[in-house]
């Protein structure tokens, strides 16, 4: 065991998979020499050579598109999009091909590509650097969408993603890249995709979140406890496919749901959680399921970002309303 933050544990997972499987390649803008702008791929080129860990030209569509080709030929490319806000030029390759190659060819050709991208706000960056558009990917048939919230999960989920025969969108909460440290085994282990995790048991309200919001929720929950509200916290870990059983079981128990995320509210992941609560636990609902999510606006520049972000207090405010409905 070693103490790792998320940057380190992802680096460790990549290192390990590069060592174990010579079909794994890692590339993207500044991924090689520089080791990535967040240093997630640091030293991997030194360890595994310039043919397997390398810089690409600045062109997101073909970063993903070429990875699809490699994957068809038996490789396991793990590509990095520097910020999730720069994945938009790659959406066509992701939607039209990465997600569909298997279906289109009745399984003859597959595209088990992992697209890694840091997402979310809270790092005082300019526009386009704080996006949380995971709902795009979740709504795209053929993809799986994974978002870890801890170093331990990040490693185990990334290993599963690389070993998965399906294409994976792997979104990394850059805000907590270095903020959370944890003991992480140095050997290989996998955390299954599609399984949520109940981080805390509770009876009054089911709180659902993922990524960097988990930490904010945990703070809110401590405050809520003082107000006598006992919260069950679920870390989704996979956005698509949702772990409907875990979520529904919890809602059936508590009758109340609060969903917390950075995304714009409307037509987001939260909407699907609201739908799920209805479809799976309608008769148990004691209060309207609630979204504590971003405004339907552009994430503001740093000076205004605090208005947009979900803070423990804001979560508490909404949580108490739901608990006392």
């Amino acid at each position, binding site marked *: 065991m070693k103490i790792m933050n998320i940057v380190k544990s992802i680096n460790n997972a990549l290192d390990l998979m590069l060592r174990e499987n010579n079909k794994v*390649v890692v590339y993207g803008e500044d991924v090689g020499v520089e080791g990535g702008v967040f240093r997630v791929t640091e030293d991997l080129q030194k360890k595994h050579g310039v*043919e397997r860990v390398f810089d*690409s*030209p600045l*062109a997101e*569509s*073909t970063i*993903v*598109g*070429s*990875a*699809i*080709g*490699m*994957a*068809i*030929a*038996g*490789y396991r*490319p793990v590509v990095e999009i520097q910020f999730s806000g720069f994945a938009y*030029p790659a959406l*066509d*390759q992701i939607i*039209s*091909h990465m997600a569909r190659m*298997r*279906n*289109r*060819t*009745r*399984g*003859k*050709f*597959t595209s088990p590509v992992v697209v890694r991208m840091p997402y979310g706000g809270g790092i005082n960056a300019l526009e386009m650097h704080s996006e949380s558009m995971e709902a795009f990917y979740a709504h795209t*048939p*053929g993809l*799986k969408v994974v978002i870890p919230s801890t170093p331990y999960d990040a490693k185990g989920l990334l290993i599963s993603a690389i070993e*998965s*025969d*399906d294409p994976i969108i792997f979104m990394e909460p850059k805000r907590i890249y270095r903020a959370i440290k944890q003991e992480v085994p140095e050997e290989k282990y996998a955390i299954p995709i*599609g399984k949520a995790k109940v981080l805390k048991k509770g009876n009054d309200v089911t709180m659902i979140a993922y990524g960097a919001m988990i930490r904010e929720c945990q703070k809110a929950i401590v405050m809520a406890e003082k107000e006598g509200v006992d919260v069950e916290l679920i870390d989704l870990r996979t956005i698509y*496919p*949702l772990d*409907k*059983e875990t979520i529904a079981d919890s809602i059936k128990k508590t009758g109340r749901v609060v969903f917390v995320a950075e995304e714009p509210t409307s037509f987001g992941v939260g909407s699907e959680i609201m739908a799920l609560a209805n479809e799976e636990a309608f008769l148990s609902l004691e209060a309207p399921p609630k979204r504590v999510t971003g405004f339907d606006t552009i994430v503001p520049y740093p000076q205004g970002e605090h208005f947009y972000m979900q803070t423990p207090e804001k979560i508490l405010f909404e949580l108490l309303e739901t608990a006392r409905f």
Partner: protein
Amino acid sequence: MFEVYHPVKGELFEVIDNKGNIINQEWFPEIDDSTVLKAYKDMLFARTVDLMIVSYQRQGRIYTYPPNYGQEAVSQAVASQVDVENDWVVPAFRELPLYLAKGAQLRDVFLMYMGDEKGASWSESKRMLPISVPIATQLPHAVGLGYALKMDKEKHVVYAFVGDGGTSTGDFHEAMNFAQVWKVPVVFIVQNNQFAISVPFNTQSGADTIAVKAMGYGMKGIRVDGNDFFAMYSAVRDASDYAREGSGPVLIEAVTYRKGAHTTSDDPYKYRTKEEEEEWDKKDPLKRLKYYLMERELWNNKDEELLLKTFKKEIDQAFLDTENSMSYELNEVFDHLYADQLGDLIRQKKRYKEFMEWKAKRQESVQNK
């Protein structure tokens, strides 16, 4: 070749004229008569398939179809020399002779355009991607396949196709640049058939040729008469040798003409004239090759008549077989999307079956009334 016919010169690489006479002996390929004859027959076969599909379409037995009519020599030049097992083919959607050479079955082609995904994967053929519906988006895949060949130290090549319209897309540009930076063994072949649906080349592209675009990537490029089988054959051979040796990608502009409609839903007379079509008809790739063969007494009209008859029978039989054996189960919709069965899909499938049962019962009860 790529220096002699350097794209900056804007020259067209040709080997035979419209009457099948060799006009460029120096670059006439080393190729034996039987290969030439086979190429002609294969092109004729492809053309016959095309024409018959168009007629099936008119009969309402097939959906929209994009014919290859007039462009057969371009992909036949690859078909005549492709390594069927090992080279990769990344199609656009007008390379029928090559699909067939690479192991696609008529059934696949029919199914595809009759609206069944089962045609899209070319059954048992090796290393050929499905046709690409979103224009030019296949080119990045070719780059990745080339990278894999390179990593695996396989001395094979990727043949990637795209149309003149496709060269306007961002993916064309990105893929060309990646290919050259990574020095992958990809032969890019642009079928410049003068139109993207109704849009003529001069509205499509700022440059006078497509070959010249190679220069913007430091890539080898050449502008070839795509209706001249021998010129295409030579260009493809030199390009693939170059790529196979690890020297990097090559861009071939194949200048050709879409003699037919864009698809069976299109009416070309909205945007071009009969005169223009007649002009290009003289350059028809099959006619030219036929002149060549007849001149050498390797072929005559009677041979052709006989062969066409056999072709038609074969094609019609294959079409009937396909029609008669068509089936599309609910499972087809769900079962190939993911490697595993997702809960959501299982639930949705189950719900659909419940609906089917309900519907059946309801119809029964209506009938019983």
